């Protein structure tokens, strides 16, 4: 999964549903580790800013 950094509000909602702990939050940025990600799509479904998709 990929995050559109222009849309992301760094709210952490995606982190709270990730079943494999693939999402890290830095001070001003959320980053998905695609080596860990299983593409379940939960983060994209709950992202209130609709900033996450399965392609860049």
């Amino acid at each position, binding site marked *: 999964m990929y995050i559109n950094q222009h849309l992301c509000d760094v709210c952490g909602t995606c982190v*709270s*549903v990730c079943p494999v702990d693939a999402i890290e939050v830095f*001070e001003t940025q959320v980053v998905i580790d695609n080596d860990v990600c299983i593409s379940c799509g939960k983060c994209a479904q709950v992202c*209130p800013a609709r900033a996450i998709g399965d392609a860049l």
Partner: protein
Amino acid sequence: MIRKFYDVVVIGAGPAGSVAARYAAMGGASVLMLERDREPGIPVRCAEGVSVNGIEPYIDIDESWVAARINHAKLVGPSGNSAFLRNNGAGLVLERRIFDVRLCELAIAQGVRLLTKANATGLIRKNGVVSGVEFTHDGVETSVACNIVIGADGVESRVGRWAGMDTALALKDLDTCVQYTLDGIDVNPEYCEFQFGNEISPGGYVWIFPKSNHSANVGIGIAGVKAKDKGPKEYLDTFVAKRFPEASATYTVYGGVPTSYMKDEYVQDNVILAGDAARQVNPITGGGIVQGMIGGQLAGETAAEAVKAGKFNRRFLMSYKRKWDKRLGDNQKVMFRLKERFLGMTDGKFENLVNFIKTIPEDKFSMSYLFKEAVKEDPKLMMDVAKSFILSKLKK
């Protein structure tokens, strides 16, 4: 100078974290509190509604952070049919950006050390035991040693994951939310409004919390499980275009609200969670400020007792969970079961609920009355609630 060791490190300086830090310090512990942002309270990810009774034990009411005093709640059903719950002077709409700083000042006055722009990045373990926190401060990597970590890091609850707890939420147990602070609108600052219905807000509600007679926090939370095709922003924009077509948004914010409950595993050796991180939220309303402060107090007190006793294992720290269950947790589990029922409610049922509330005499209104009457109307509800009660009692 930041010391190399504190008895307790609190991660997150929201209401849960700052109250936890304050009570730990009052109990004699040395406390460091880390805040990721440049200032506690910002960005505000909150509808800012609280009850006076709920916050009074923790802070003297001060006009500098009270935007509006709320007398009533207006519940609006899917057809526009509405009912008032009257409760004079019982509610407040806050200015969280001031409120959160005041709570931090109260912690600092008890000896807590606060660092802003301090982003926790992991836990340090010595022989398998959590013995400190790694963080960046102003972008520079550093660390601090401690005996207890209190994770009050909000919905994302990363501290819990670092400690090996499963804090991941199911999609049905998370509300995905958007809120605008709208200005240039006509609102009655005496009441908060809640709009229900599957067309308006599936599995959640739209709120209008006034901040003055010309501005309000207007937001929406929808159940994550119902956000597949349309997100909360699309629902909210539809609502706002109809209701406040001429409004300007002075603020836009996104966020998630856990609608789960606090579990035993949120207490581990040397690590406990509080606030949204511990899912200390009313699963029906999504309210978490007062719940987080109560959880924070219990977490802070337990941490101070642990420091005094020199015992930091899960067995000792579980007294925190037992105190929480007695105070709010048992009730929270019942609310959680009710929330699961609300998720499946049809618009017709919402209409019945609004009509039913209309029939309650003003002087009789209380949550327990509402509950008793609702159970009469819907026996299956009673079975659910009875089961939750029995289960929660059996666990003790």
